[in-house]
């Protein structure tokens, strides 16, 4: 069993799928979709596959998924026999993961939008998007601080879940849009923990742990 990912290399949502697949060591096919500048996700062929015109799209046989949380859940349920990444046999943990999957959509709508404005000059209200992202970050910071008091590292339980993967990209990429991490120490720790996972995979804007030179110029 494998799948095909309709992918744009700079999309944080596409990266969620690539990251989880890498962490679970799952091989898959990609089809490059020219989101920018080609707007190919709105092309007739792509709209036939996904009427919402969004990326990514995951296809496995006759299964077509267009919502990133659904893709993460399906990949974890299919390829993680331990059941820890998507803990369906623990009612409370499963529900908490779903809370954070919903929260990840708020991150896309704020931090993700700010990044689209800052990088691609999409018609987006940048101050509004950044203010929204900051509200999300404060909520996340508060949660992670509470988790740390109880010895927890991850958003839910004592093992990383698809909740961490769903929330990671648009938090990690927020400096692209102009929101730095300096004011959020617990978030920074959590980002480090995810980067340190075996099988972790980067995307442009997110560096590998060993090459981190935060706050320091590499060139010049």
């Amino acid at each position, binding site marked *: 069993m494998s799948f095909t990912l309709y992918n*744009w*290399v*700079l999309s944080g949502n596409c990266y969620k799928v690539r990251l989880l697949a890498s962490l679970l060591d799952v091989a898959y096919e990609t089809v*490059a*979709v*020219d989101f*920018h*500048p*080609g707007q*190919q996700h709105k092309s007739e062929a792509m709209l036939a596959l996904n009427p919402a015109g969004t990326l990514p799209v995951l296809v496995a046989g006759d299964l077509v998924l267009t919502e990133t949380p659904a893709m993460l859940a399906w990949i974890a349920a299919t390829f993680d026999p331990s059941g820890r990444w998507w803990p369906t046999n623990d009612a409370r943990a499963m529900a908490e993961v779903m809370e954070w999957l919903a929260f990840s959509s708020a991150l896309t709508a704020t931090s993700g939008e700010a990044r689209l404005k*800052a*990088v*691609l*000059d999409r018609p987006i209200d940048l101050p509004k998007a950044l203010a929204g992202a900051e509200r999300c970050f404060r909520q996340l910071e508060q949660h992670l601080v509470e988790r740390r008091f109880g010895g927890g590292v991850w958003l839910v339980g004592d093992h990383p879940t698809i909740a961490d993967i769903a929330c990671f990209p648009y938090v990690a990429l927020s*400096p*692209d849009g102009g929101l730095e991490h300096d004011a959020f120490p617990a978030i920074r720790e959590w980002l480090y923990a995810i980067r340190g996972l075996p099988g972790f995979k*980067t*995307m*442009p*804007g997110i*560096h*590998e742990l060993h*090459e981190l030179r935060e*706050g*320091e*110029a*590499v*060139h*010049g």
Partner: protein
Amino acid sequence: MSLVYAKNDWYAIAAADEMTLGQQRQTLLLGTPLTVTATDEGVVVRDDQGKTYPYQIKFDHVWTALGDAPRALFDIPEGDEPGRRCVPCGVVRVKCSPLRAVENFLDIAHFPFVHTDILGAEPHTEVEPYKVEIREEQDEVWATKVRFFQPKAAKSAGSGITTEYEYRVPAPTVAVLYKTCPPKPEAQDVIAIFVQPRGEEECDVWPWMALYDDESSFEELVQFQQEIFLQDRSILENQLPHRLPLDPKMEIPTRADMTSVAYRRWLKKRGALYGAMTEVA
């Protein structure tokens, strides 16, 4: 003074294929807001006061100059070679000096650290000595005989190869590189960035390529270049000072940065100081 100099260069301000009849693009060039409109008589570039500016379409982009006596636009003859695929890669905004964007593009030493496993890899971090010159006749900076081991030099490269590079700066905000073309070793791929200075500390960057590659899809080629450029973007935005220092006392370049030294000297000599710092602030 630096603005007067900058106004007499040409800049890419739009993708030619997006300028279809009736399309309009609002943009900013050297601090001047511009409207680019595709009409049935061609492209019109106009500022807020209604003043119009000349344009030309080259290398798949619309170019304009704001000054009264623009210098000639350089050529990239490879772009017209039959068999090559010309790939405009869209525009990416970066909060950095336009000169910083060019300098970063010229810097080979960062490949293994920033473009890990694509354009470079540890432990292959050594840059062999190469040649840098200012070609007075064309008034361009050239770096030649640059050799570097690359795990995946191009979309068309199957495995690691030692790539030979040549770099060329034909205008203060344009950098062109020529590199070994994996499927056609007698030819060179051409990759360029056309930097549109919005202001002295913000630019829109238009990457463009002219390649021999019949295998990869257009979408894959664009994404290969976008991935590489976005790896640079976060580093560019974090460079301090934001403007490019031209006083040698301000930043001490390493041995691998000979191209950068030549570029900075060349800018200074020409008076191309838009986006530069000439004394310690």
